[in-house]
């Protein structure tokens, strides 16, 4: 008599086996190769696989580069801005459409449509829209917003968008106090203003997908749950805030992780919209990897940057997994 638990376990493993095998090769095998490249002297198109001495010099060189420091800052700021905006917008749209209204299907398709477009082209369109002289700024004049502002004695609204090199809310002073090494940072640690239009464009593109995720989840919440909440006297707003949104937590987590992988790897959109930006205000690690590997042919440097990107994603994934492990035990 075979233990049914044992059988189930092995059936489960059997189902997972092809995926695990492919992942072992395509993910871990290839990443291992990249990691190895990052430790070598390979910095021209001619392959040189001799190990660098000292071994970690490519990494120390890279972390000292102001450009790479700016990239780390930009990824952090962009990720927070983008995930916040996209989850908020997508959830809002899903809740608005979570009821019987005419044209529901039309709205759903309309909000999803941006996601169908290729990033490389939407990047160009957004670059046009955020052009400070001919783009969206014209509407501030047409709609009379600037007239109102001027009559109130304020300066008219004309943001530079992606052309603005400013970094606001710099925390360099705080860092320098908190940690003696902080004074050696070669860049301003704060929010590069030029990243905001990029986060808006990315939100426009992805929030429809977030909406779809939530619509899938909302469809799973039964009428009984809603009715029960209503009987308890909860209004529309309270019902969503204290009953439904908490129930959607697993969806929120998968959405955030999917958006995180988009934000960490974002390339086409930024490349088409602003390139590296004024003073690297919109540069991201994926562009760094691309330029170092394929324009400068510094393979070890490009590989090292991609490894750092992976390690950065661990910082978010590991807490998530710890969370899931815990929730299983309870």
């Amino acid at each position, binding site marked *: 008599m075979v233990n049914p638990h044992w059988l189930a376990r092995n059936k489960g493993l059997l189902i997972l086996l092809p995926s695990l095998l492919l992942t072992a090769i395509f993910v871990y095998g290839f990443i291992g190769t990249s990691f190895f490249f990052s430790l070598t002297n390979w910095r021209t198109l001619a392959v040189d696989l001799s190990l660098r001495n000292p071994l970690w010099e490519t990494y120390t060189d890279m972390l000292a580069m102001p450009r790479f420091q700016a990239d780390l800052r930009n990824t952090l700021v962009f990720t927070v801005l983008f995930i916040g905006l996209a989850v908020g917008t997508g959830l809002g749209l899903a809740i608005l459409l979570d009821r019987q209204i005419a044209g529901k299907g039309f709205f759903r398709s309309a909000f999803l449509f941006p996601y169908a477009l290729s990033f490389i082209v939407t990047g160009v369109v957004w670059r046009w829209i955020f052009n400070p002289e001919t783009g969206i700024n014209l509407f501030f004049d047409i709609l009379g917003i600037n007239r109102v502002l001027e009559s109130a004695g304020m300066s008219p609204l004309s943001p530079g968008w992606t052309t603005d090199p400013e970094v606001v809310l710099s925390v360099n002073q705080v860092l320098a106090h908190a940690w003696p090494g902080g004074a050696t940072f070669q860049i301003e640690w704060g929010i590069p203003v030029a990243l905001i239009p990029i986060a808006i464009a990315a939100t426009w593109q992805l929030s429809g997908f977030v909406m779809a995720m939530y619509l899938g989840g909302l469809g799973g919440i039964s009428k009984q749950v809603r009715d029960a909440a209503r009987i308890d006297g909860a209004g529309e707003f309270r019902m969503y805030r204290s009953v439904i949104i908490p129930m959607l937590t697993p969806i929120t987590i998968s959405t955030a992780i999917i958006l995180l992988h988009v934000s960490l790897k974002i390339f086409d959109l930024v490349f088409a919209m602003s390139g590296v930006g004024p*003073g690297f205000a919109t540069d991201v690690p994926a562009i760094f990897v691309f330029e170092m590997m394929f324009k400068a042919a510094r393979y070890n440097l490009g590989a090292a940057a991609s490894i750092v990107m992976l390690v950065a994603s661990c910082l978010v994934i590991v807490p998530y997994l710890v969370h899931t492990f815990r929730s299983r035990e309870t």
Partner: protein
Amino acid sequence: MRILKFLPILLLAACQGTSNQTGAEKQIEVFTWWTSGSEATALETVLDAYRVAYPEVDLINASVAGGGGSAARPILQTRLLGGNPPDSWQTHHGAELMEYYVNPDYVASLRDLYEAEGWYDLFSPALIDMVSRDGEPYLVILNLHRSNTLWYNKPLLAEHGVVIEDSLSFEELLGIAESLQRANIPAMCMGDTGIWATGIMFENTLVGTIGPERYLGLWNGTVSFTDPAVMAAIENYGRLLDYQNTDHAALSWDQAAEKLGDGYCAFYSMGDWVYGELIQNGLEENVDFGWVAHPGSEGTFLLVTDGFTLAKNAPNPTEATDLLRTMGDRVVQEDFNLLKGSICARTDCDRSRFGPYLQWSMDRYAEDVAVPTVIHGSAAPPAFQQALNDALTNFVVQRDPQAFAETLAREARAAGFGQ
């Protein structure tokens, strides 16, 4: 069940994917980044000339777009490293050719072809020198662009009482810029979402300020980037930045050309690919726009070229050599360059077929000292080119000439050619 309907399509496409690999007929694959507009049309004239001469060969045009080959390069590099090269591919002359392809031994010598076709007498010795290592040539150059030209909107300047003669000094340019600024017109057009565009203005100002000898010295290690003359050039470049259109960082280089044509700004220091763009926008040369050497760079020709290689161990060496022979043909070069808006690499092309600007460019090429561009990869190794782009990105915002010069000096040493 709907899946079943797609099955035939899948099988068909799958067969198609593999059949090209096993096909027995003669074929050749050429890899370029000319995929659209006049460039693609110009390339097609060359490929058509080949197809007419060799109808039995199936010519595959594996073009991948992207400014200066930005998308094309990863593909090409991955294929070269993977041991799966196209028969011939596009590259610039000088350091790019040497560092990317000659040093790692990816390309074959074209000496036999050059000798058989008598090209040693038909291309200028300076040009042949730029594509050769140890006397072996590795590239057939199809066209020449001049990078150091200052374009201007003629009616706009006339409106402000300015007439440009045969040359323009830097001080004169600044004077005009100052008076235009009072009229609220930015003097310098710029579109640098791709940082290389402001890089062109930098290298034009550099060569215009320090002259061709010292410019060449930068690349062979006899002149340092912290040299006072170079510092003066950086200062000059910084002064030009003050007169740019404010939305330069949101424009691509061709949109800046459009601004020039529309009269939003007066001058554009840019390579002569601008010429094709202006003509395409329906402007007339010497009427709507004029040109002059970038201030101080009279007598110097900053050279940007496009050429084609022969892959070492090319899958189809005979066919590839035939294609390169076609590219070196006089009539093919004339036809190509008329469409591309550039001049022949051969010195015996019929100048009467070309318009006023291109004739001017031919005369300049014949008389001037030709020097390699760093922005398009010819003067210095790729690692330095990237470092220069990064330093420019910082300088445009921070305007610290000392830091800029020191960075360049340090990167030049790291790349192995600096002092």
